[in-house]
């Protein structure tokens, strides 16, 4: 486990060490040390859950801003379909796309368009003998990273296709090269992102040598400028920029990717806890009768991303409105087109963060020690030690990165002062008569 890039970061200044995030992290990747909630690099999937739960805004996502456009001669914005759900009273996505272009871009290319092509290729893949049922979507990078650290045995189920974001980035680059004659390094392609997971996927792709995307701008960062530009458009007609239909736009919400497959046997789960439950079910061979499993780390799908501006349920309702009257699909794979570039360049590789040791007998003695330690801990799961639970502290101790006296109760027990032993914190006090 060498160097992992993570977009999710801690602002130490703001962190109070309150321990809220350590308990909510789905992979148990956060520990409070010296009063600050640090992220264990190998375990983090950049799902953004800690950003959502921190009341002190101490967890944030590393991201780009519009100043980066100056690095390139020609810039293309590639907006996630989630963007369209952020604004009220819009009947035509061209208003949003035009407003986006006027933020300083030379062109816009909808990720919804790339998504429609990915849907077409997925349909083809599902009908081939390469499909390991149930086939798991690879579009959400937080889910891919979760699978690699916690369910590596399920990797063969994951569909080996690039995400709509990458497919769109590739197409956007191709078009920009054609239109401008510029070299790749002079073309900036910026993803308008709902989440930190996508940013991580851009900076450190797992299944591509290099991302087609140059940078990522958070939806909530560009939102104010977009609002202003949309207002300014009120008395004009927008440019004609859209290319996607309702299939592409549906990818923003949970179930959209599945519906586009035009088959009934699918399951769509959203929210990281639900995703974990479904992966367990697949692992236990309980879902063998299902063809396709769509998993989104965020509640409601990408509309629930932690870098969006609008409530996910409101965004979903708006997308439903927008879809009315749209063609089913606006982007297609051409007859006889070579689609090799739509597949991964290298496989998803697993590395197991769960196992205690590579040697089973060593792992067993570690586990027995863990159990002995845990039996002496109070079972309060209070988090004061910096670990999410007493069991997690026991594991940390055995793994060698915590000590028993990190638990305030164990510290008390070891103090050689009889007085302390009679002081009981509230949870242990006997009811007074």
């Amino acid at each position, binding site marked *: 486990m060498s160097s992992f890039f993570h977009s999710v970061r801690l602002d130490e200044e703001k962190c109070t060490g309150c321990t809220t995030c350590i308990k909510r992290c789905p992979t148990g990747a956060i520990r409070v040390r010296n009063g600050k909630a640090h992220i264990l690099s190998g375990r983090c999937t950049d799902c953004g859950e800690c950003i959502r739960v921190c009341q002190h805004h101490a967890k944030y996502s590393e991201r780009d801003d519009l100043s980066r456009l100056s690095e390139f001669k020609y810039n293309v914005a590639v907006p996630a379909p989630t963007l369209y759900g952020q604004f009220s009273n819009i009947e035509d996505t061209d208003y949003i796309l035009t407003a986006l272009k006027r933020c300083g871009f030379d062109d816009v290319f909808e990720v919804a368009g790339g998504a429609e092509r990915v849907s077409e290729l997925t349909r083809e893949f599902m009908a081939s003998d390469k499909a390991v049922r149930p086939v798991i979507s690879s579009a959400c990078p937080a889910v891919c990273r979760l699978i690699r650290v916690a369910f*590596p*045995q399920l990797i063969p189920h994951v569909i080996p296709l690039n995400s709509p974001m990458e497919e769109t980035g590739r197409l956007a680059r191709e078009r920009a090269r054609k239109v401008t004659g510029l070299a790749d390094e002079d073309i900036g392609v910026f993803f308008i992102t709902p989440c930190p997971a996508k940013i991580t996927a851009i900076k450190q792709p797992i299944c591509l040598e290099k991302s087609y995307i140059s940078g990522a701008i958070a939806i909530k960062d560009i939102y104010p400028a977009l609002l202003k530009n949309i207002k300014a458009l009120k008395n004009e007609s927008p440019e004609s920029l859209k290319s996607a239909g309702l299939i592409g736009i549906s990818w923003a919400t949970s179930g959209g990717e599945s519906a586009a497959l035009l088959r009934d046997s699918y399951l769509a789960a959203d929210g990281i806890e639900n995703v974990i439950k479904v992966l367990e079910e697949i692992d*236990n*061979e309980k879902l063998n009768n299902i063809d396709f499993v769509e998993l989104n780390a965020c509640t409601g799908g990408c509309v629930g991303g932690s870098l969006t501006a609008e409530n996910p349920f409101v965004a979903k309702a708006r997308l439903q409105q927008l879809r009315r009257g749209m063609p089913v699909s606006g982007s297609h794979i051409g007859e006889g087109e070579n689609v090799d570039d739509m597949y991964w360049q290298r496989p998803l590789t697993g590395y*197991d963060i*769960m196992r205690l040791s*590579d040697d089973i*007998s060593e792992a*067993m003695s570690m*586990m027995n020690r863990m159990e002995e330690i845990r039996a002496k801990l109070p079972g309060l799961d209070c988090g004061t030690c910096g670990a999410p639970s007493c069991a997690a502290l026991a594991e940390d101790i055995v793994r060698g990165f915590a000590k028993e006296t990190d638990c305030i109760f164990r510290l008390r027990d070891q103090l050689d002062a009889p007085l302390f032993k009679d002081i009981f914190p509230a949870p242990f006090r006997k009811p007074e008569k």
Partner: protein
Amino acid sequence: MGIKLKYEVDGEDFTRAGEASGDIKKTLKKLGFPPETVRNVAIAVYEGEINMVIHANGGEITADLSEDGITVVLADKGPGIPDIGMAMKEGYSTAPDNVRALGFGAGMGLPNIKKYSDGMEIDSVVGEGTTIKLKFLPKQ
């Protein structure tokens, strides 16, 4: 050196069925048993655990884990199985309608336990209970 695990299975609460097999699975993963072994144990023990809840009003599961193999014993004080040969047949089930409505009762549990384990012994006395002993050999 080995690990012993023990679980009481509540016969009243459907929603908790699967907790014991889930925990055994998690433990095996932590210990680094091969994925195939982990999966086989998880599937077989889950079926046994569900049977305990549906047919026997709960019971007890113990697991002995060692490098050379895994032994799981599922013991209950339920009604017992009158004809084990019959019960082992694919499709044989006495599950009542309310249980079938939940998706159980295909009569595949016991056959699957046999399929996924490397050894299965059933002891059952009508009116006293059922004990199923399962063996799993670690494979790479």
